[in-house]
């Protein structure tokens, strides 16, 4: 089993991740002079959430050929589910000191908590929703789409329509989820103050663990026979049908799993950045996820994670170093990568390494 899940690249990546998971909190909390500043901790936690999101997309796109331009929606839904819990946890510490209602409800004149907010005061319930809500959406959407054999670009565009519609919906203040401002001003999670280094370090470790789990789960799926069937679907869908596989079922399965994974990523992301709002649903965000995957290396899982981290890191550094013109750099990066690294960064790196290393078989 171990050998099946951990190939060379996965091994190296997970090792690196593990080292980081230990080093970062220690360097941030335990060592004198904070070699790892809190600023960096929060940042890296955010990157890891993105990485998990990228992995979840790679699972459906890289292996089942389902290009979702709406994966941001699942991410955001997970984020909102967690955000709603954090809102409830504020309790009477809102600016109006209302014991029950979040601030935005108070000044939008709600007299009672809307029904869909009930239960979110319970952490476990929230966590359940974090996976269930995106999972359910993915199920309904996928069931419709795959059953009626919507494929390729048409599928991509309606996933985009889905996230776009959700964005507009969440922008509406009537929805009772904070409208454009979304959910913010969180105080603490499970009693841990979100503004302390230890909590941040904790979130970082959680993010790292989630990413590891996500990678292993995806790896388990893709290396199983089901994984091979999915690749079959990607290469020759009708053939798979004639062999006797009900393709829609298989697609639906990974789509839902992937959506849940994205939801988890979002749920960790929310406390890390301290805000969740409809902007996360914007089609542009979802497109960016695709770009992470393509840039890192589609169909490699690890590559997707790396792609996400590279882009996010580039964004952080560039917006600080060359705020006036950073878009040139970012845009240029996308163009050049597609032109010169058809297999993404990971593919390129491995090819160059393989030149020096004696030929060794790596399973996909």
């Amino acid at each position, binding site marked *: 089993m171990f050998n099946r899940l951990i190939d060379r690249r996965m091994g190296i990546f997970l090792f690196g991740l593990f080292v980081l998971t230990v080093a970062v909190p220690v360097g941030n909390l335990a060592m004198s002079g904070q070699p790892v500043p809190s600023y960096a901790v929060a940042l890296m936690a955010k990157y890891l959430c993105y990485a998990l999101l990228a992995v979840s997309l790679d699972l459906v796109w890289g292996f089942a050929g389902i290009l979702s331009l709406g994966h941001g929606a699942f991410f955001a839904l997970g984020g909102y589910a967690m955000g709603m819990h954090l809102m409830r946890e504020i309790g009477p510490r*809102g600016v109006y000191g209302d014991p029950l209602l979040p601030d935005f409800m108070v000044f939008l004149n709600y007299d009672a908590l809307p029904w869909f907010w009930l239960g979110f005061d319970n952490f476990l319930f929230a966590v359940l929703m974090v996976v269930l809500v995106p999972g359910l959406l993915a199920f309904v959407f996928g069931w419709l789409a795959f059953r009626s054999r919507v494929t390729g670009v048409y599928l991509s565009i309606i996933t985009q329509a889905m996230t776009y519609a959700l964005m507009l919906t969440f922008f509406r203040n009537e929805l009772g989820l904070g409208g*454009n401002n979304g959910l913010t001003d969180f105080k603490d999670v499970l009693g841990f103050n979100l503004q302390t280094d230890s909590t941040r370090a904790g979130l970082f470790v959680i993010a790292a663990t989630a990413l590891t789990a996500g990678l292993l789960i995806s790896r388990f799926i893709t290396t199983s026979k089901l994984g091979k069937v999915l690749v079959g679907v990607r290469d020759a869908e009708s053939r798979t049908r004639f062999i006797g596989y009900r393709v829609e079922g298989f697609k639906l399965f990974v789509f839902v799993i992937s959506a849940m994974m994205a939801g988890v990523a979002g749920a960790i992301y929310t406390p890390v950045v301290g805000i969740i709002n409809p902007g996360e649903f914007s089609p542009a965000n979802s497109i960016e996820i695709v770009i992470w995957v393509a840039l890192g290396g589609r169909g490699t899982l690890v590559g997707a994670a790396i792609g996400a981290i590279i882009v996010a890191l580039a964004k952080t550094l560039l917006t600080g170093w060359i705020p006036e013109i950073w878009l040139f750099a970012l845009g240029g990066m996308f163009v050049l990568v597609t032109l010169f690294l058809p297999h993404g960064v990971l593919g390129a790196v491995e090819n160059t390494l393989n030149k020096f290393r004696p030929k060794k078989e790596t399973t996909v």
Partner: protein
Amino acid sequence: MTNLRKLSLGLGLATSLLAGAAAAQEDTIKVGILHSLSGTLAISETTLKDVMLMLIEEQNARGGVLGRMLEPVVVDPASDWPLFAEKARELIEVHEVAAVFGNWTSVSRKSVLPVFEELNNILFYPVQYEGEESQRNVFYTGAAPNQQAIPAVDYLIAEEGIERWVLAGTDYVYPRTTNRILEAYLIGLGVAPEDIMINYTPFGHSDWQTIVSDIAAFGSTGKKTAVVSTINGDANIPFYKELGNQGISAEDIPVIAFSVGEEELAGLDTAPLVGHLAAWNYFMSVDTPENDAFIETWQTFIGDENRVTNDPMEAHYIGFSMWVKAVEAAGTTDTDAVIDALIGVAVPNLTGGLSSMGANHHITKPVLVGEIQDDGQFDIVWETDGLVLGDAWSDYLPDSAVLISDWRAPLSCGNFNVETGQCGGAGE
């Protein structure tokens, strides 16, 4: 190779941090500028970035502050709310700025609040907003609803005899809150609810045909009608173009806007819009020597003698001189000292008065109502006699009417509940 990547990631950050630390050693005072230079908000915010650079340059020409030069640190939060928080943290932790001037939308401000609270730094927020907030580390130099909306409505009733109201806004917090305040206020004045029409549109709404004709229909009942517009930046131009094209003149149905200034009009042929109004605390057309000087320096700085000035720019102008004055008074850039020193500081604004920082971290300003001219400028048709202090907690909303804000000891609370007699939830 992946752990190499990791390593370099760590290094990358580390170096950028070290750089920051090193730079902080030099004998300059760093000032953070947190305005979007890309994305949807770049339209409005880039100007504010430039105005800050100008003000800092001027101050340095005058010998800086406390004998030290000021060093602007510009970052681009790219109109992305979580990125605002990240960048704020970067400014404070990595670059160790003494204060930050920035943000445009409420949501971006909300997303950086916890950062400023945690790292105890100062933010100057220059944009008119919905109020309902007073945070220890934030100084609100833009207008609160009582510095814009209420006087504007008073003017329309008094001078234009308006009896019927359309409250049109983009669907987010500022218009929602402002319109609720106005609705309460109008009904208080005896306006019948059926004489108030409220309409919300999404961000960047571009097809206004239906709504404009609805407004025209609503305004054709014989009662004099006006539109109070809290429509957000991007959507305004198509709105006004449709208004002009459908031939709704200001004499039939005047539109008074709270988010449309000279910058927005710069993108428009204003000939069909003459007479429509806006309420601000500053207009470029204000006729004072201070303003002439300001416009002069701005246009030379930006190298374009047609470049306009607007209200948020004045807000930064006021905020910045207040900060300078406070730092000099405190003799240090230490946050707590400056925050205390800021309250009560009075500096000349561009409309010929002295604006001062209230104990609720809002400032006093005059309220002006201007009519759009065919040259894209506003002709000031009315202004308050004295200055108005921004009210953090509106008196027209039941839940906030009971709250007051006073950051001076002993109270030092942003949301003190006068009924329960204790500092409400958040204030610690």
